[in-house]
């Protein structure tokens, strides 16, 4: 039964989304999972979310001192465990955020794992997570010396959310008129850290006014903000939590700086 559900999920298709689609998941994924009546719905939903957010767990494990292989194994093993039904009762205990739920489950699992003999075999050869992606050097997240695993997890979490939103934005822009301009603008707007790149140069190259480029940059940021909120909304229980989640991560990252 589970196989059929998993095969129905195609996570590779993140680029070909129709414009305006709220994305991979329904906007309220986490609350839907919490409210779901059927085990399989919970499992399917959990898996879809967890697949999108496995990287922060990997960073967490790495920051705790695991090697790439060990961390990959841990995350992989955890996911097999996560999708077993004894986790289900944990889902509906009113945890407000998926982030804290996932980390709590993971640390519990690691703890138990430690006390357990390594008898468990990796099941069935089904590669649940695209961990092989990690092998490419550029993709490996930066480990920061002295950062606590918890912080690394949250940092990785923020990054994953931003990445998802950014990917969606890119997908949308690619479909617009003047997509080339917009994609370049996206690149410049966000990677300069908002310092105000050389709009003048860009404007003249694209035959636009300075003001129009600036305005487009503002619109882009606004769109990104909307997409980011949509992304956050999938992993919290209700709308009010969206701000709390963002605020939490901002305060955490600001402190780290």
């Amino acid at each position, binding site marked *: 039964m589970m196989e059929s559900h998993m095969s129905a999920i195609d996570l590779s298709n993140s680029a070909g989304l129709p414009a305006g689609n709220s994305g991979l998941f329904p906007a309220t994924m986490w609350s839907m999972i919490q409210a779901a009546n059927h085990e399989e719905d919970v499992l399917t939903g959990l898996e879809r979310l967890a697949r999108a957010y496995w990287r922060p767990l990997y960073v967490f494990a790495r920051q705790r001192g695991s090697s790439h292989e060990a961390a990959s194994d841990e995350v992989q093993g955890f996911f097999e465990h996560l999708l077993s039904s004894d986790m289900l009762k944990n889902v509906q205990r009113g945890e407000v955020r998926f982030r804290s739920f996932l980390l709590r489950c993971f640390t519990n699992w690691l703890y138990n794992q430690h006390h357990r003999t390594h008898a468990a075999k990796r099941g069935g050869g089904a590669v649940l997570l695209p961990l092989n992606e990690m092998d490419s050097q550029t993709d490996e997240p930066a480990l920061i010396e002295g950062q606590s695993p918890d912080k690394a997890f949250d940092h990785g979490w923020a990054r994953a959310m931003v990445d998802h939103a950014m990917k969606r934005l890119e997908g949308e822009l690619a479909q617009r008129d003047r997509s080339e301009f917009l994609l370049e603008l996206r690149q410049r707007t966000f990677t300069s*850290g908002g310092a105000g790149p050389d709009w003048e140069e860009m404007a003249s190259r694209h035959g636009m006014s300075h003001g129009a480029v600036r305005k487009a940059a503002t619109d882009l940021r*606004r*769109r990104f903000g*909307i997409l980011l909120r949509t992304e956050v909304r999938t992993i919290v229980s209700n709308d009010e939590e969206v*701000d709390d989640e963002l605020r939490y991560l*901002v305060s955490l990252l600001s402190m*780290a*700086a």
Partner: protein
Amino acid sequence: MNPAANETNCCPVCSGRLERDGLCLVCLLREGMEADHVTGQENKNSGPPTRFLNLPCEFAGYRLVREIASGGMGIVYEAEDLNLKRVVAMKVVRNAQFATREEAARFRAETQAIAQLDHPDIVPIYESGEEDGMPYFTMRLAEGGSLADRLKKRGIMPDRKAATFMSRIARAVQYAHEHGVLHRDLKPANILLDVSGKPMLSDFGLAKLLDAEFQLTRSHAYVGTPHYMSPEQAAGKAKEVTMASDVWALGVMLFQMLTDKLPFTGGSAVEVMRRITQEEPEISSSGKLTVRKEPKQAKEEKGRPENVSAASLQRVQPDLATLILRCLEKQPARRLPSAGFLADELDRFLNGEPIQSRAVGSRERLWKMTQRHKGASLGIVGIAASLIMGTVVSVSEAVKARAAERVAVQQKQESDKIASIILETVHGMDEYLVGREVNPEQMLRELLRRVSGFQGDPRRKASMLEELSTLLNKEADLKLYREVLEEVEPQLDVNDPLLWSMRYRVVLKEMHISNAAGTKGREIRDELRRIMIWQQEHLAPEDTQIYKTKYALAEELVQEVKGNEALIEAEKLLRSCLAHYEKKADHFDIIVVRIELMTAIFGLGRKEEALNLGRETCDYAMEKYGERHSITGRVYGRLAKHCRETELVKESIHCARRALDIYWHTVGPDYMKAKLSLKALSQTLVNSGDLTGNLELLRTELKVCDQQLGPTHAYTLLRVESLLATLRQMDLPEEALEIGGAWLERVRLIEGLLPSAAAGLLIQQSLTLLKMGRSAGADTLLQQLPALLTQMTGELSSFTRLLPLADDLLESGRPKEARAIWRRIIAVCEQRQDEEPKLVAQVLLKAKQQLQQAENDHPTVKESGC
């Protein structure tokens, strides 16, 4: 890339560490936070980098002497005014690093809020401004330190002294609430003392203007000192922070004054917050202080004395304990209804009279128990019903505070807001509801149904209704209300103030929906006169309610009835109101009354006198409120109107521009009066032949909308449409085409897809294309119209405004699309007939006629689509 450079790579905006690929996560996450705000402009133009002031130094014409305190956002300095040679306290935004647009706006809101308050027990603000990008304001320096110092030095206050002290504070808080200002951070450190020890409320660091819709503090839900936080603040529910949260803080302070302890303590801020939200305060209703049982002692035996420490042997007077407990109710709705009520109760206590609040009794305990075991047995409706029984008073307080700013609550939008106040209260009562989609309109309906089915004490029922009547704005509601009024009327004494108050409210609502010229209108005014006479005979001569009635009648006479006789009566009424408010030095109401008086006098033909009154009132408003308050805009707006009617075109244009400028900077371009002023000014410019000026005005307004409301806001879109239509009329289709196209693209970019609110814009753009003979382009655009029309929801007006556009489409040879619009309008109107029967009937008739006409002229050739 050079790895060494990477390590030092800091975000130039927030100084945070940049990611390897140059992204700044903090800034990006902030985009998400910003995206929820009404104004979504750029937040990167934040002012100069961090700078601290090295003391002593000169700053904005002051010599800063020493730092007195540093609060959440600013540092307070003792400063000497170099001109006036007086010593003041100056608050400066601490750290420009944090001075984002959001925080600067918050600071402005803060100064604006305080400047409005004119109360002997509120620290007055002298001046506010900005120097080197750092906003500041100066206020009176309190020489006596703060209540916190006083408590630290001298400990417990005697009962009567504490009651007297708290009564004063509570009155000042009530005054602020009535002016739409919440404190949100009341604590002893914010109660300053003058040399004589008189308390003064200060630091509205978190004050939020109820009326200006400042959502800016939402991203800072965890503001405030934990010990004085209300449960809703501790739980981070920024949206639910209301006047009741201030009442909570007053309760904590009263507790602290009487016992030198805090009702909720803990080892860490989080622990304190957890106790605030979950545990009962450490005092019993008989006034005994209780010591929180630690888990180990949980199995305490009955006979054993509960309280062990010496301090816990003291008792608080039961009445005071009751008041404290009533302030410290977890549910905002169950707290004392207002700070003013607390003051009244304390005064009763001081006068040896019985207080009106009851101790927490069995009913409440039962309620609390059901709260703990909620779930299947309690549905939304049940909760709403319980809510109504206990909370109408607090809702009404919220309503009144709003009413002080905006005189009438007529618009549907506004009553929706009030309904959401109730809703938020419901949310506060039961988290079961949080996050569930509840339509405020539905909720209100349900509440009304519940109230009308209430079979208890008629007085109680009447008072519930009276409170709710403020929300009634539909004919159906009024009918229900009248029925219940009739039902309870025989059971109330003829001179029961409640009865008269209800009658007043009903008649006020009736007045808003009736035709003033008809018989009904006359009856309503007679009823108002009867109420006025009763009030004059039975209420204290200085009771403001009398003048509210007088003003309501006068306003109706001036605005609706007109005519010589009516205006003569109105002038008399208004002059009496004016005398009353002048005696009370109530500047706001003085201005409101003078505005109507100006119109009354103008209508009576004494034009010069009226204009002079208007001019004087403009100066008066500028002096009292300045251009940072919308009331000043109102005076200018009205004066502009009368100048226009006197053909003083220049002055009219000047005044209207000022009014608009003030509205734009205070309440925003989508405020009803701002819209009206704009329309009038635009018309004046067109009539005087200044078409370019008009175009410039529309462009400027659009810019303001773009900045303040965002490019995709429904009103902004409406203004783009208007600009496009004007450009077409002025035979500038190229410019129209360019603006329209660019805007459609922006909307698509931001929203992902074209939202239904852009239907009008789409039509306008198509009309331009058609005018330029580019019908293929128009076809492509119009293909999207049916889908947008089907998606449309929302207020009726968003549909009805499409009527003229349908006409234009028909004229431009697009009968198919025109018909689609009419059909959609007809369908919607038929579904929602009872919402606004008059309007619906009108619109329906028109749409049907047009559709019929079009069918005759251009018979339908099998259409697909809607």
